């Protein structure tokens, strides 16, 4: 019996299996009261601040706050509730979904051995208050957030790019930023070193990793068929010996044919 004929032309492009009922699994949220320490802390926090939402995820308390409250809440968490360590701070891009950035502050309490996350969302062109006066680790983290995601931070004493060069255009960790860079990024080093007029001489970047051009001897050398730069490709096998045929004076003659190949380690 013959197999059913299938068009295999785009077999690798197509997903071979799709689940019609697939739902992206989300991390289960537990009630704040399910953990004793967090329940106590949350009760204390609720006396002073308002929260949009609070839950426990993977054993960590997540607090969703208004962006205006971030400084007050973080200093309260540090001074009153012993969350003394800001281990991470960054933002993620939800611009396509809702035109917002989600900013999170990951805190650690050494004494309670608990981790806590404070989250808030701000609109694209608004800014968040800097917390570097509360946690020193926020200094570079906020600069990184400003650099890569493009979130503006108010009252930061030294807000400038930290990873990308100062004259870089765009924010690379935004979802809309192309992986291989926009035009400014693709020509960045050429523009900076030689100037824009050199673009024509150097040419665009070669972005196809699988590209091999046998006839091109300016960019490629075929192994065992090496020819000088720009010369015509040759089928003749070249012998790349270590030295010239007639040897080098004062240096021992050393030829591949005389060398010994070890198959095992000595």
């Amino acid at each position: 019996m013959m197999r059913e004929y299938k068009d295999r032309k785009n077999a690798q492009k197509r997903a071979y299996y799709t689940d019609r009922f697939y739902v992206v699994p989300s991390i289960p949220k537990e009630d704040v009261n399910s953990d004793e320490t967090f329940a106590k802390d949350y009760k204390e926090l609720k006396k002073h601040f308002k929260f949009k939402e609070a839950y426990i995820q993977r054993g960590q308390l997540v607090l969703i706050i208004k962006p205006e409250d971030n400084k007050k809440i973080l200093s309260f968490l540090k001074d009153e509730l012993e969350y003394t360590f800001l281990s991470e701070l960054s933002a993620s891009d939800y611009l396509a979904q809702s035109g917002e950035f989600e900013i999170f502050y990951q805190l650690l309490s050494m004494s309670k051995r608990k981790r806590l996350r404070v989250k808030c969302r701000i609109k694209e062109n608004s800014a968040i208050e800097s917390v570097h006066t509360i946690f020193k680790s926020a200094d570079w983290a906020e600069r990184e957030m400003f650099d890569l995601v493009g979130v503006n931070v108010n009252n930061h004493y030294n807000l400038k790019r930290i990873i990308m060069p100062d004259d870089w255009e765009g924010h690379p960790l935004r979802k809309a930023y192309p992986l291989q860079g926009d035009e400014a990024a693709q020509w960045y080093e050429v523009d900076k070193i030689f100037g824009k007029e050199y673009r024509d001489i150097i040419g665009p970047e070669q972005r196809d990793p699988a590209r091999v051009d046998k006839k091109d001897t300016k960019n490629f050398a075929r192994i065992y068929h090496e020819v000088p730069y720009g010369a015509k490709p040759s089928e003749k096998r070249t012998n790349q010996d270590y030295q010239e045929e007639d040897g080098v004076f004062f240096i021992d003659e050393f030829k591949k044919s005389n060398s010994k190949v070890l198959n095992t380690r000595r």
Partner: protein
Amino acid sequence: MAQHKVNYLQESGLPIALTTVDKLVQWGRSNSLWALTYGLACCAIEMMASGASRYDFDRFGTIFRASPRQAEVMIIAGTLTKKHAEFTRRLYDQMAEPKWVISMGSCANTGGMFNTYATVQGVDRIIPVDIYLPGCAPRPETLQYAVMMLQKQIRKESAFQKQKPKRLI
């Protein structure tokens, strides 16, 4: 008193070699290729290994120098980011002629696996390269081989020729 006596006629022939000035100069150059101490990423570890005792670059006359003014070979060992490109170019420009460049490893050759916005897609976009070394990372033997190939290339060249305009300059 010990009598020190070397019998040149018996031991290693006459202490005379007949050659051209050209060859002598290039032979000298090829055997004192001082490389710039300049590592960018993991290839630099292999470069350091090549300089250390097991592979021993010193026996080729290749000594790492910490100043571009004293270096003749630049080994681009690792990923070149776009932010760093101008400094690589500046170091290259600071080196005195004659100078050569070895592009070591996939990242320096073509950008390698870093097909991203932040990596220079081949160091030959900013400086002319004499030898491309494949590998990720190339073993010290490969780097040694490249240096030997470069020495061979240098011996072929004429000492007093005007420096040929190289790629991109």
